[in-house]
């Protein structure tokens, strides 16, 4: 089922006594989710991603705009008629019902001709349970399950209705780090197996990047960028997106463009053909540094952190606004941790220029400065 969101806007009436102004949670949201894809809504807390999910689900009605599931407009339709399955952040499993009863619950809600026979319900429940591998736990209560198992039950309960759309609200946030890795694989696998169009919300960029077909990066209710994870990472639309994606985060340095060259700390680092002279912000991914004795970027060495496969060099540079520069290089490179300074060259594909004031991307063909 394709989902189309057109000019979606949601405002909430202001709650604070002092400012009666409405709060805009989602602003002019336009996006089309292709059938069968897994889409991650990504952004810091309060960016409107959960509201967007609730709008798709039908728990909230948009102030403006339209929502289509396939050809049907569902903008003001109540959630139960939309055919959506939702997994809540805290799973919302009914604590007094067993796993089996929880999964059966949505089916038992149906009335009239939609109602399935007992055997059919049982069969569907078993199928859903098998899909998420909890067939052995059917008679337990949610309180007796681990976080990961509860998560699976919640997914099974959402899937048993055979929804047209599956929605997951922060599906991994209540799990510990190890389970998170495992569960996100599971989610990906289940989504592939069922082929249900799935939207999930997360504030963890790594989570979103690792399993999504497409990600939507949001900030303050406005879409910043959409696309396949690697595309967005390699070609961020603005400084916010560049900073939000990637761990460790991108290094931001202050520089300027003069004579079609990017200057950092008084030296030309990259050539930027066709860009007029101006002050710019230069974002360089940690993996975008090359250790060169004659490199143009001279930094003071602070320390070296060994991480096994890689080492990361923490250095300081006057052009760098916030904190130091962090460069990740292969552990095979010879670094003298006691050296007082270090020099880098910059990989042009890993560096981006942004306008100083608007922080929008300046698209330029960067090249190594000869």
């Amino acid at each position: 089922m394709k989902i189309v969101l057109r000019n979606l806007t949601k405002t909430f009436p202001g709650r604070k006594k002092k400012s009666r102004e409405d709060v805009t949670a989602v602003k002019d949201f336009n996006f089309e989710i292709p059938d069968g894809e897994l889409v991650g809504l990504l952004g810091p807390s309060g960016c409107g991603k959960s509201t967007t999910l609730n709008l798709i689900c039908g728990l909230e009605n948009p102030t403006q705009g339209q929502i289509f599931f396939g050809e049907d407009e569902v903008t003001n339709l109540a959630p139960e008629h939309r055919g959506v399955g939702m997994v809540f952040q805290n799973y919302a499993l009914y604590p007094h019902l067993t796993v089996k009863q929880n999964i059966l619950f949505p089916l038992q809600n149906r009335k009239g001709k939609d109602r399935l026979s007992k055997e059919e319900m049982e069969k569907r429940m078993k199928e859903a349970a098998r899909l998420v591998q909890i067939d052995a736990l059917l008679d337990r209560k949610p309180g007796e399950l681990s976080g990961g198992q509860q998560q699976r039950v919640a997914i099974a309960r959402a899937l048993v209705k055979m929804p047209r759309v599956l929605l997951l609200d922060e599906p991994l946030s209540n799990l510990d780090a190890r389970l998170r890795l495992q569960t996100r694989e599971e989610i990906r696998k289940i989504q592939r197996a069922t082929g249900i169009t799935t939207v999930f919300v997360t504030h963890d960029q790594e989570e979103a990047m690792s399993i999504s077909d497409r990600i939507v990066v949001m900030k303050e209710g406005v879409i910043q960028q959409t696309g396949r994870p690697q595309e967005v990472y390699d070609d961020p639309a603005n400084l916010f997106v560049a900073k939000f994606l990637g761990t460790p985060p991108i290094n931001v340095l202050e520089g300027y463009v003069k004579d079609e060259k990017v200057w950092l700390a008084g030296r030309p680092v990259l050539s930027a053909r066709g860009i007029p002279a101006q002050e710019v912000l230069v974002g360089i991914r940690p993996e975008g540094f090359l250790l060169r004795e004659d490199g143009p970027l001279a930094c003071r060495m602070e320390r070296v952190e060994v991480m096994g496969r890689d080492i990361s060099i923490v250095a300081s540079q006057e052009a760098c606004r916030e904190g130091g520069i962090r460069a990740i290089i292969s552990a095979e490179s010879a670094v003298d941790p006691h050296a007082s300074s270090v020099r880098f060259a910059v990989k042009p594909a890993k560096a981006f220029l942004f306008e100083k004031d608007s922080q929008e991307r300046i698209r330029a063909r960067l090249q190594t400065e000869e």
Partner: protein
Amino acid sequence: METKMDYEKLEKSERTAERFRKFFTYLLLTFWALIVLFPFYWMVLTSVKSYASYNAEYVPSFFTLSPTGENYREAFTSVPLLGYLGNTVFFALATTALMMAVITLSAFAFARLRFRGRNLLFTLFLSLMMIPNELVVITNFVTITNLDLRNTFTGLILPSVTSVFYIYLLKENFEQVPEELYRAAKVDGTSDLKYLCRVLIPICRPTLVTILILKIIECWNSYVWPRLITDDPNYYLVSNGIQEIRENGFGRENVPAMMAAVVVISVPLIVLFLAFRKKIMEGVSRGGTKG
């Protein structure tokens, strides 16, 4: 196209159902609110009707155009209402003050001091909560009578200056204060009593205030014990006073004067409630029960 039509119909029928539900909800809520409020309205209304006009109304009127304060004067002069009020205020304040001191000391001992048998003793205390007042009131009555304390404030006050439940409530609250504060105070050489007064009591003030108000309400409304222990009107509390007024006061017919007395007795608590609404409701929902 067809499905789209269906959806619209669904939306519409749902909105209508929702409106109906809202309407009936408000109807029910308003109905009960009127039942709750009506006796209050009626007592105020009757209290400002004159004796003559009240008795002339075979069908009571729902409002009066000529309110009179006569009944209030009557209530304060022909029966010692002021005396009842004074007694109750004194009784409530004295009982509450004594109780606060007693329970604070005990709660502190249970919450912070270490001594042998602490847990056992606390369990015993908790089990005392199950003893119904009706069982012990008999012996207490005999005790107070034998001590010759009937018709004295001492006799009125003494049996109700401890409350196991409030000790429990306060102990829980004291324990929420990080123990590090106590240790730090000990390191600084602060005495236990000083720590209690300077640290614990200020921090736990909200709970203490809640208990204080609940106890005052309880005292204001207490009826059974005062009735047993006092038969001299000079020591009557408002509850006994009102009963006395009803049976021997203005004569059964002077309803407006009676209602004036009822208003005078009810107003202080209602004012107290409106002033501390949040605190009282929160305190009660944490485990108060009536009676």
